Structures are given as structure tokens and as C-alpha cells.
């Protein structure tokens, strides 16, 4: 028996005992091919998935290496079936390659004829391929590069893309590292992306993904299109780029609902890109407005379906995806893999926290008991009404007041899903509220005031979930959420995790109604926190310090 830190389970999970002396070495060895699924305090769970293994193949690892790593670090003998499966899965990647042909443009080449035959007979790829040049080579219609990769992944024969990229229109961009410097992991991430060609960088919220983007632009030295989730986020990107790079405000354009500028670096929102007028996407031409050398996708896990379709046509351009999590609630991880690219860099939250780049957080779930009259209403309500009823109980407002009072001197955010509830809370606390109907200008003003410390308390709806940089927030109180969304939990926690002065830790409260669906959904979210390594406590509302 080997005394390794790793236990390989037959259901393709890997358990890593982190207190083991060899744990760090083992983690480095398995990280390229295994997806970190949960990282609670003692044992981390990784999962072997076809995508993960193909990611590893794309990064130049082979099955022999993977098997060897498992056998070397595993405490117990490794299930044979699993090893066979790994070898089988990994061997599927790269049997087909997309290459450039001197006369025919893009071609699909295979070193395994039966695979090519199988693929050629598949209905899904029928329209994408042209003339067969020889036994192993088929012409691919240039416009189908992305669609073909997507279809081949679905068939289980992911293609390796060797067809290269266009350089795009050159534009000098350099990082301006005066008074700050790129953190080591940000540098590694940008390097890993650049050498991989295209792909996704996974970093926790607050870890400075924008700077990874800026560093990537520094590598590309070309015109860049940045796609972000909303207008506020677009402005933040712009500010950040002006501050951190050699770019000036004039070189950066915003392309959103209100402004339509096309400049060497253009920041567009997903919303404007997916706006249809008379059944047509009106702003698609932006994608071809310039000869972009790099396309940046912020928050890849939120990428809307139409953008995927557009991305399929952009396969000749370098693409970088930035995200905190590869988990998509719609399960389209495969599309991210085939259209944007494989995962190029990944670092667990706790790691970056322990390096002091993001703040530690104290997570508390506060349970309130519904009074019996509300319980009766809840019990007789229609199922689809129940969550709203449970989430919006008036008792939560008292708890919010209590918590706000407790953290009086600390900048606090109250986050919720239901507007009426937020309005009520805002009234009770006498605090400004930001919701969907708040104008961009007003939002900007409130966020700026909060950042500057002029306002200590802000009530926000889900508009603040993404890409809003509020580094000063120290306390977040969550009163309701979109059901059990783990991704939302990550985003909201992320708001708090920007590093604090004096190493203070952040507080993250979730208020739930006991014995209702609210508590059930909360369990889902709590589990996510625990799996990310955040210890959380559960307290009853009456036990809170008054």
C-alpha cells in the first residue's frame, strides 16, 4: 500500500486529503485533468470528466501521464475500469484535427480512418464538410469551423484546432505597472492563455480577472473586442483599463444601449449584442466592424445562447473567457469548451484567499421562524407562490435591522430578489435602493458614493450580482435569492471578497425562513459555500446578539 494523499473512487471522483504532507504536490499534478468539485476543510473532491481530460490533452498531457499520476499519488490501488476509461476518453481527442490547407483552406484531417468514416456518416456534420481530398482529409467550409467543433464534441470526437488565428489589426497596448504589479497567478493565467491560443481562465470573484484580461491584451497587441454583462460593468472595465494600461480613454469605445462607439478597444454588452429588431440581430456587424485580434468574454458562465452562435463564426480570432466558475446552470459547458476553448488556468478560492489576495469571509445562516398565521398562509399557498411568501416574511426585516445595527460602522449591502421586499427594507432602514429601473447614472452615483464611504448602507437587487466592483463592502445580508442558484451565491460572496484593509474578514449573512422551501434552497447554497471551503454557521434569529 502506498501512503499517498489521493483516493481514487470508482465513480470517477478523486478525494484529496489536504492535511497530507504531499497534498500540494499531488494537487499540482492532478489539477490539469481533474475538475475541482468541492473544497471543504479536510478532503477536496475532484472529478474526472471527459471535458476535463480533453482539456488536459489540449494542454499537452497524455493518458499515460494521467494514469501514472493517479497510480503514483493514490493511497489505494486504482480501479482498473477507471484507468481503461481514462485512456479511452483521452484517446478520442485529437484523432481529428482542423488544419490549414495551402489550396483548400480549412480541412479536417484524421489519423484514424474509421473515426473519420463515422463522423462523415453523422447527420449533424453533413452540411459542414465539403469535398473529400483523400482518405484522411476532408474540406471544411470556412464558416463552419465553430459549428463543426461543436458538433464533433457532441459526437464524442473533439477536434484539435491547428488552423491558427488571424493576427488582427495591430494596436499597441502595454500594462502600466506604476504603483502596482500583476499578481503572480494573474501573470500565470495570462501566459497560460496566450500559449494555449484560446481558452478560459477560471478565477474566483475578486481575484482580479480584469487584470488578466488586460495582461492578455498586452500579449496580443491588437484591437480587442470585450463582451461584458451590463453597462455598469462596461464602464468599470473602461476605468480599469485606462488606469492599468497604456490605453487612453479615447482609444476605448463603449457599445451599449445608449452609446455606440467603435474604437481600437471596444467594450460591448451582451444585451446590446443580443437585441433583435424585426427578428434580426441588429448589432452583429460590430463583430466584423474591425479586424479584431482578440475577443474577451467576461463572465463566460452567463454567455447567452445567441452569443454562442456568433462565436461559432469567430473561430479564427483569439478568444479569452473569464469566469469564476465553469458551472453553467444551463449545462452548456461543452459549448464553452468547443467554441471559446479549453480551460487554461484555474485556482481554487481558498488558495488565493490564503495568499491574501481576497478577504476571508464569515458565513452565517440566520433562521427565522414564521409566526403561525404566516405558516398557515404558506401551507395553503400555491406551490409557485411559496418561495416568494417564505422569502418575503416581515420577520426578516427585523433581523436585517438587528444585523445592520450590529455592523453599524461597516459598509453593508442588503441583497434581495423581490423588489417589494427591497423597497420595504429600504424604507425601514432609510437607505437608498438600486433595482432594475434605477438609471445607469443614478446607479453609478450611488456606487461611487458607497465606494467613497459617503453611504454606509445600500439595498440592491440582482442587478448588482455581476461585475460591480464594490471593494469597500464588508457585510452582505442576503434576504432572498433566485431559488438555489449556486452561481448567484458565488457572485454575491464575490462582492465581499475584495481584500480589506487591516486583514479584516467579511461577513456574509443569509436570512432564511425555517421549515419552508426557502430553507431547502438555502441548503443548496450553503452547500456550495461549504464546498468552496467557507465554514458557515447556522444560528436562530432569537439567538442573535440584540
Amino acid at each position, binding site marked *: 500500500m502506498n501512503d499517498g494523499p489521493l483516493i481514487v473512487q470508482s*465513480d470517477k471522483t478523486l478525494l484529496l486529503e489536504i492535511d497530507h504532507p504531499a497534498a500540494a504536490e499531488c494537487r499540482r499534478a492532478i489539477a490539469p485533468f481533474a475538475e475541482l468539485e468541492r473544497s471543504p476543510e479536510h478532503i477536496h473532491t475532484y472529478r474526472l470528466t471527459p471535458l476535463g481530460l480533453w482539456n488536459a490533452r489540449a494542454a499537452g498531457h497524455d493518458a499515460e501521464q494521467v494514469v501514472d499520476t493517479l497510480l503514483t499519488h493514490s493511497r489505494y490501488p486504482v480501479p482498473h475500469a477507471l484507468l481503461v476509461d481514462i485512456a479511452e476518453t483521452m484517446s478520442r481527442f485529437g484523432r481529428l484535427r482542423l488544419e490549414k490547407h495551402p489550396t483548400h483552406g480549412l480541412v479536417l484531417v484524421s489519423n484514424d480512418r474509421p473515426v473519420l468514416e463515422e463522423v462523415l456518416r453523422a447527420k449533424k456534420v453533413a452540411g459542414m464538410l465539403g469535398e473529400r481530398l483523400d482518405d484522411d482529409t476532408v474540406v471544411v467550409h470556412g464558416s463552419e469551423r465553430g459549428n463543426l467543433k461543436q458538433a464533433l464534441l457532441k459526437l464524442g470526437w473533439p477536434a484539435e484546432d491547428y488552423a491558427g488565428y488571424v493576427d488582427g489589426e495591430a494596436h499597441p497596448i502595454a500594462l502600466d505597472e506604476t504603483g502596482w504589479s500583476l499578481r503572480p497567478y494573474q501573470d500565470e493565467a495570462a501566459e497560460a492563455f496566450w500559449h494555449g491560443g484560446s481558452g478560459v481562465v477560471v478565477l474566483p470573484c475578486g481575484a482580479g480577472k480584469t487584470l488578466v484580461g488586460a495582461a492578455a491584451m498586452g500579449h496580443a497587441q491588437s484591437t480587442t473586442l470585450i463582451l461584458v454583462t451590463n453597462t455598469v460593468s462596461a464602464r468599470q472595465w473602461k476605468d480599469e483599463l485606462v488606469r492599468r494600461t497604456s490605453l487612453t480613454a479615447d482609444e476605448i469605445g463603449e457599445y451599449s444601449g445608449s452609446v455606440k462607439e467603435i474604437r481600437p478597444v471596444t467594450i460591448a454588452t451582451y444585451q446590446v449584442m443580443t437585441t433583435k429588431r424585426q427578428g434580426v440581430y441588429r448589432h452583429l456587424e460590430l463583430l466584423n466592424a474591425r479586424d479584431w485580434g482578440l475577443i474577451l468574454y467576461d463572465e463566460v458562465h452567463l454567455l447567452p445562447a445567441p452569443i454562442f452562435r456568433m462565436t461559432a463564426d469567430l473561430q479564427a480570432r483569439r478568444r479569452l473567457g473569464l469566469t469564476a466558475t465553469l458551472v453553467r446552470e444551463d449545462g452548456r459547458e461543452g459549448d464553452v469548451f468547443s467554441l471559446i476553448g479549453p480551460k487554461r488556468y484555474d485556482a481554487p478560492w481558498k488558495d488565493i484567499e490564503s495568499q491574501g489576495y481576497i478577504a476571508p469571509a464569515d458565513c452565517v445562516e440566520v433562521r427565522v421562524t414564521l409566526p403561525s398565521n404566516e405558516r398557515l398562509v404558506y401551507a395553503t399557498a400555491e406551490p409557485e407562490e411559496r418561495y416568494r411568501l417564505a422569502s418575503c416574511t416581515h420577520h426578516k426585516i427585523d433581523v436585517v435591522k438587528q444585523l445592520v445595527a450590529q455592523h453599524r460602522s461597516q459598509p453593508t449591502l442588503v441583497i434581495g430578489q423581490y423588489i417589494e421586499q427591497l423597497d420595504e427594507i429600504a424604507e425601514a432602514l432609510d437607505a437608498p435602493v438600486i433595482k432594475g429601473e434605477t438609471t445607469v447614472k443614478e446607479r453609478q452615483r450611488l456606487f461611487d458614493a458607497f465606494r467613497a464611504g459617503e453611504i454606509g448602507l445600500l439595498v440592491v437587487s440582482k442587478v448588482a450580482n455581476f461585475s460591480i466592483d464594490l471593494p469597500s463592502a464588508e457585510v452582505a445580508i442576503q434576504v432572498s435569492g433566485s431559488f438555489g442558484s449556486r452561481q448567484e451565491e458565488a457572485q454575491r460572496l464575490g462582492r465581499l471578497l475584495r481584500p480589506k484593509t487591516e486583514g479584516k474578514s467579511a461577513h456574509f449573512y443569509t436570512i432564511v425562513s425555517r421549515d419552508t422551501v426557502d430553507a431547502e434552497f438555502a441548503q443548496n447554497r450553503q452547500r456550495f459555500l461549504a464546498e468552496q471551503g467557507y465554514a458557515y454557521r447556522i444560528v436562530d434569529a432569537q439567538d442573535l446578539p440584540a
Partner: protein
Amino acid sequence: MAGDSSGTSFRSLADQVRAWPESRLAQLLRLRPDLATPAPQDSGQLAARAATRASVLRALDRLTLAELCLLHSLVVAGQTPRSEVHGLVDADPAWVDDTTARLEDLALVWESSTGLRPLTVVAELLGRPPEHGPGPLDVPPALATSTHDPDLATRAAAGAAFDVVRRVELLLDHWGSAPAPVLRAGGLGVRDLRATAALLHVDERTAAFVVELAASAGLLAVGAPGDLPESWLPTDAYDAWCRRPAAERWTELVRAWLVSPRTSGDVGARDASGKPLNALAPGLVDPHHVDTRGLALAQLAALPPGDGLATGTGVPSLVARVRWLRPRRPASQGPLVAWATEEAALLGVTGLGGLTPAARLLLDGDPAGAAKEIEPLLPAPLDHILVQGDLTAIAPGPLESHLASQLHQVADVESRGGATVYRFTGSSVRRALDAGWSAQEIHDFLGDVSRTPVPQPLTYLVDDTARTFGTLRVGYAEAFLRTDDEAALETLLRDRRAASLGLRRLAPTVVVSTTPIDVLLPRLRDLGLAPVVEAEDGTVRVARPDVHRARTPKARPTGREAAREGAQLAAAVAAIRAGDRAVAARPATLATGSTPAEALAALRIAIEEGASVWIGYVDNHGTTTERIVDPQRVEGGQLTAYDHRSEDLRGFAVHRITGVRAVDAATGRPSPPAP
């Protein structure tokens, strides 16, 4: 043994066999066991039997391609002087000599005065010449191998070994409480196999193999528990198997697999009539399977440690090798070899394509050594778990069995393997409370077995679940009665005969009594009710379903079989020799004139002299046999004599003796005819 017979020639095969020493005769019977049962009368009969189509076919089926080629050349040549055999084929002369001798040993070829002659029937059965590529005959096809670190290979194999043991245990534990029904045609239904695959986290092929393996090892059999229909159940041998260390459990499974003719690889395929073949179906047997598997493993055993079949090309090369060794076997041989290697890998008999040291010991018939060899590679049972903030508990190895069963009540299993991941949920905690645990007991249990501090959310979960689990009521009563049938309670309470029982109603469905239970119970029965007793401490105990067992099918131990076979061979050889002497002693003209009186006289003389005599004897079935006997006594028309054929004292009716003649016991040759 080429030297024994070279230089001499014979009139017939029978003649040649008669001249063989006993050891060579015994070898023939060992090589062609079908000749030995029933024991042949004499060399003539043996030779005749050795030339029958059925027997020759069997012998030919066991020849290698090279041997067949040589035999074919001999057939084509007709009669070949021993000196010319070397010229017939392209092969190493020493090999040709050995093979020729082997063909003679097999009694497929004999030496006539004009040279070596194959049996006539051989020519007929061989048909077309066996196909053989260019190059010398005696070089078998090479195996495609690759070399690994023997240590890694052994560990990979041990992983599979541990897995298969764990899977068999998981499966049979499950079937012990939820048995799988037996199909009407025998076997296991497709749906049950699919459920098994899901249970074991494997594909259906592997699931079928695990099921078949358990049955081969006598751990799984058909039984009819109580009033359930016929089902697949763990046997009582399973309980014994479970109590043994993992290493011994593994060796037992592998030994059962080595001698199992079951073809689990066929499960899911369709038979000739298009019906799908089910796992455990009675017809899933191939008589060649054991032999072919043994051959395949023997080829692997011949590789140096660390060498294994190469991925991809290894199995086809092994199939080619086995096909070369047994070219006349049916086409099913290819799949059989492929299955054997696949199953060997699943069992941990091979690791990274090579045979493990433990498996080598098993093939050599040393299960104890094999168990000792593999034991340090298997995980040892643990007595602790790690509890984490995400409400999971991880047992980083197999748990001691009592600990595992306790944990199973409190938490759900989420992932299995070398380690087990448990998850605590509201319903799993409630299950423990249902099973009679108190919240405090759960806390204590977790505190005891967890090597890490129990996280607050888990403590909270247990308390929160216990909070809603029930409210406290304390009272005094000798007994209580509970039923869902309110009307029945109502009837009981109003029954005048029940007045003396001291009944009091607590709830519509609950009544307590001041009468002790041993008095109350018969009284209630007298009133026509059918009560059952609850546990004494008043907690609600989960009625665990009975765990059922079937009887272990009897299997003959292989060692005794070999001994018996040896004894039978010796007996057969002795019988043939006695028959030969009887024929040699036969009078030139049958002593038809012998009257019973003359016969009696001759027998008496023989008794006096203590000599052996030849007798002609008509047995119960009217068959005339000839025997050499040593007469002991004659009385009541019955001769008692030592019969050389059966090597025992026998009785013979004097009136059935057709003739008696003296035999020279020393030479075994007949004396001059009696006057």
C-alpha cells in the same frame, strides 16, 4: 520415448500398444482420457477404440498447428521410414523427433514394417492441409507485449482485485434484502441487470461478470425465501466468505473463475433464435472455456514479470497464439480468449496486461501464498471518519463492519471506492432517529468516530431534525395497544369481557392497559384479536426485512478428482494387461469338448497346485469372456477364484465355464493342451 519403439516394427497399432511398457500405456490414457472409460478389455480393444472417429477427433482437437502440419505430411506420405521424417517439413529436427514421438504416444501414428503410418481415419478427418504461413513450422506466433514497472502493474491489478471483492459484497448485500427474481427460463432479467450495473457503478458487461462470478463461486444461488417467488439469493457460504479477510475472499473468487465454464461475455448478445441471452441463464456455458482460458493465462504466465499484453495489439496477438495452439477449435475461441483477458483484468489477475505475482501463485495452485502476496496491497479496515462542513463524512478506506453499518443508518452513501463518502441530510438523520437513536447518541457517535471536530452545521442539523422528530410524553402503563383501526379499538373498549383488562384510551388509535403483557396478550387473543408485541423499551424499532440465504451448491474438490483419476488409470492399465494375458493363453481350438466334470477336475488340480488357469466363461448377459484366474475353492457348483482382470476374488458358476486350461503363471504363456 522415441527410443523405445524405434528400430522395431509392428503388424498393427494393437501390436505396438501391446509392446509398450505400462508407463507409456498410462500416458496414452492420460493424454486421451476418453479411451480409459470404461476400462478396455485388452490392447486390441484399446487400439480399436483409439482409432474410432470420435476419439481421434478429440485427439486432433488438442494438437497445435505445427503438430497438425506434421501429421498431415505423414498422411500425405503414406508410410514414412523414421529416417525420412525430417525431410517432410521445415522445422528443427529435434522438434520433429519430439513431435513424432508425441504423435505415437497419442496413438495417432504407429510404426509398421515399412515406416511410420498415421491411422487411416486420421487422413479422413484431417481433410484439407492446415494453413500455415511461411517460415519454420515450430515457431508459434509472437505475443505483442509492452513492459511496465512491475510495481505499478501489481498495484493496478490490486485495485481491480479490491474493487471486484467490494462489488460482489455490495451486490450480494443488496440482493440479500432485495432479491432479484429468477426468470422463468432461468437467469436474471435485463432490467435487473441494468439495476445491478447502476448499483455497482459499472457497465452492464461488467455487472454481468460480477453476477456470474458470484454464482460461480457458490456465493449466489436460486432460493425461494418464505412466500417469495424463486429469487437469486446470497448463499450461506456468502456469510462465511464475508467474514474472511479481503485477500482470501479474492483468491476464492479467482479460483472459482479459473474452473468456471460460464461465458458471461455473451450476456446481452442474441442466440440463434434471436432471443437475448440473460446473465445466469443455464445455457451460458462453453465446454472449451476453461481450457481456452487456462491456455491464455499460461501464455501470459510465460512472460517475464512486468511484461504484459500491449494495449490494442496485445489481445489479438494472444488470440492468434491460442488459435495456433488449438487450430481445430471452433471459431468461438477468439471471443473466449478476449473475454478471458478482459475478465482477468477486471479480477485483478492481470495488471496493465501482465499476470500479477499473486495470480501466478494461484495458477500454481497455492491460494494461501497468493492471499499472502496480495494482502499488503489491499486497504486495511479503518476505525475513523472525517466529518466536513459541507455535511459529508469521508471514510478514507474500508470501515470496520460494525462502524459501517452504524454510519449507514445516520448518513447516505454518496460515492464508493477505496474510500466511502457519506452525506448527512435531514432524512438520513431522521432515519437514525427512526431506528431508535437519540440526538445525543448521534452526537456522541459522531464525536467518537470523527477524527476532525464535528462542524456546527451538522450539530445544528441533528438537533433541528430531532426537534421536529417528536414531542415528549411520559406516563405509566403495563402495556399499550396501538392500531390504525379506530373502530377496532372502539369495539374492544366497549367489549364487556375486556373490562377487567384496565384499558384507557390515550388517542383515537392508542390505548394503554394496567394488565401485564403476558396476561394481556392471551386475553386479547381470546377476544379474537391478533396483536403483535413491540420492543420492551418502547422505542419504535425498524423491522428489518429478513435476510435470506440459499444453500451452497455442492462442488467437487478438484484434488480428490485427480486422485480418483489416477486410481482409475491404474485399474484400466491392469485390466488391459490381464486381458492381453487371457488372449495369449487362449487355446488354439476352443476346448469345446470340456464337460463340466472335466472342468471341475482341472480346477481342482489347479487349486491343489495353486496355479493360474485360463477359463472361458459365459456371464449373466450371455457374453463369453476369457479370464485368467487363480482358483481358491469349488463348492456348491460355484468356483471362488482370484480374477486377474478385476484384481479381486470373484465367484463363477461352474456350469457356465466353457473350458479350463492350465497357464504357466511365470511366463503367462499357455501350457501344452490337456490330453
